[in-house]
């Protein structure tokens, strides 16, 4: 688990080596109980609301701001909102109307930049998470269920990618790709991100493979494919879903970090990572609002996803009651 990489880390709440406890066949009641428990968990409710709001920014930014994606005026750049505490640098102390969060390095409205920036950040995180889950689950199930040489090959390949330090790997891949579109970032994050999911699902599949209900299905002549899909997968689903919520959060942070390193998304795309990366140099040299607002949004969003994952895990873990 690499400390530098937000992606490999945050999910570390569930360590790769943690043996996943085999559960009996999933009954509807686990999910029903979980739903019941979650709906009464204030943390989960608040976090879901945050996520909903952010997702609505990503889907319908126009609902939240009347300004276009890049309506900027560099003559008022880096100006903090009038209510913002602290001393302002001379020349940047204009008393702006209508800029509740001030302006960015390039003189765009910080508020609308944050709204518009949600889409790439969320799109990257969601697509990468989905792809990672797909690839990781498939390989993990196959490796864990079949074992033998299939497992060995998949595990060794996993080792190669796990051993590649996440950030360095991303920097290398993105530098070599030389394209820095949103798709390149997604591709690289998936290429480097599938390993953990694979290991965890493999562990689950491994522990489920020899359980009685699987043996029973096998005895009744079910094909391997059917056993994997109908018996193993449903039982592995809970940890996968929990991991996914954590992944979404950490991929949002990963996008920001890559952008900071200069290998992530690029203007004129608007993303939180770009806003933070563009603002952070100046932020620590006298323009704190450039960092404060986008960071708060980023942190609250990531936090919401991770806490949601936590709550989900607690709800799905029968031992936690």
């Amino acid at each position: 688990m690499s400390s530098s990489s937000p992606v490999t880390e945050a999910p570390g709440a569930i360590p790769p080596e943690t043996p996943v406890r085999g559960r009996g066949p999933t009954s509807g009641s686990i999910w029903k109980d979980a739903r019941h428990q979650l709906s009464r968990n204030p943390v989960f409710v608040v976090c879901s609301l945050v996520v909903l709001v952010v997702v609505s920014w990503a889907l319908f930014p126009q609902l939240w701001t009347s300004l276009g994606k890049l309506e900027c005026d560099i003559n008022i750049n880096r100006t903090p909102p009038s209510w913002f505490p602290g001393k302002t640098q001379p020349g940047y102390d204009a008393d702006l109307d209508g800029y509740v969060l001030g302006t960015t390095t390039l003189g765009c409205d910080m508020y609308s930049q944050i709204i518009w920036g949600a889409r790439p950040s969320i799109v990257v995180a969601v697509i990468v998470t989905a792809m990672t889950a797909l690839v990781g689950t498939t390989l993990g199930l196959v490796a864990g269920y079949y074992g033998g040489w299939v497992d060995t090959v998949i595990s060794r390949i996993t080792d190669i990618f796990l051993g590649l330090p996440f950030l360095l790997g991303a920097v290398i891949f993105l530098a070599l790709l030389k394209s820095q579109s949103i798709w390149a970032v997604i591709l690289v994050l998936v290429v480097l991100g599938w390993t953990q999911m694979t290991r965890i699902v493999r562990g689950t599949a491994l522990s489920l493979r020899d359980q009685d209900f699987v043996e029973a299905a096998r005895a009744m002549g079910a094909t391997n494919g059917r056993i994997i899909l109908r018996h193993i997968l449903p039982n592995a689903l809970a940890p996968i879903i929990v991991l996914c919520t954590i992944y979404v959060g950490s991929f949002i942070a990963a996008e920001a970090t890559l952008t900071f390193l200069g290998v992530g998304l690029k203007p004129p795309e608007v993303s939180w990572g770009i806003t933070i990366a563009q603002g952070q140099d100046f932020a620590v040299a006298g323009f704190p609002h450039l960092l404060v607002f986008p960071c708060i949004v980023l942190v609250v969003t990531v936090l919401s996803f991770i806490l949601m994952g936590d709550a989900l895990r607690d709800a799905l873990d029968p031992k936690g009651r």
Partner: protein
Amino acid sequence: MGRYAVRRLLQFIPVLIGTLFLLHYLTTLSFQFNGNPVRALFGDRQPPPETIAALTRAFGLDDPCLSQPGNPCVGMFVERVGGYLRGDFGVDFNLQPVTDLITRAAPVTLRLTLLAIVFESVVGILAGVIAGLRKERFADNLVRISTVLVISVPIFVVGVLTQIIFGLYIGNWVRDRTESETMEAIFSISYQSDHPWASLIIPSMVLGATSLGIIARMTRTELIESLRSDYVRTARAKGLKPTRIVGIHALRNCLIPVVTLIGIDIGGLMAGALITEGIFNIPGIGGLVFRSVRTGETPIIMAVVPLLVLVYLIASLLVDLLYAVLDPRIRYE
């Protein structure tokens, strides 16, 4: 266990060769599609072709297959690996042997990693224990929220803020009040080669922050589970002191997955130091690789990254072996 270790060690070979080839192919493709990085050394102006040729040759980038897009240059790869076996890892664009660069950078990164591991383990486990013992109370919530916070705030923000707060504000305050060079080094802005440990303390805290959060959360979860376990109840029935029950009986069991996590983290920390090293001007491995990626100094990428993979592999092997030591129920055949 010996045979198990040997088998695992043997499995390193395909993984390492795989890593090397992956990197080789990526850098080859980059050369083929992006052009000769030597050219960029001279910027806008076109130097005489023989100069480019001489430099390209000196850097070992003169293989004709590099001008055939898509060609994986297997011959070149074999040659390279052969060179590695002879201890020849090539030179960088300043004609410095890559081995020199690594021997200079590795100890620094190693120190940083060590400090980070000590920091994240001690503080992380402590925070996790406090949270676990005070489940759902203030201390627990504080630890939970703050650990998620360090996980979710981008490391570069944490790093720069730490540098400014500790290095500049607190640092200036300290410098006004102490003559102690060690204290000054601890609160210095950047790495001081005269104080190779002290000046790495604060950077190591930044580096370890993310893992600290994970370790704390994991310790907490494991401890809560452990405290509910039968053997802790037995320990209580044995009339042991609470400190002993938690510190020996419960914690010893929780530590198994936590140690795993820390072990796997070693590899990640060494490379993950990239951003921390950049912020605190620490001349370590992360910066070296980052530079080489930017300039296209293939020999550095090709030597350092597999090295990091190797560190990761060794760390995870050690962890697995340690696992067996910590948990007597596990046996490796």
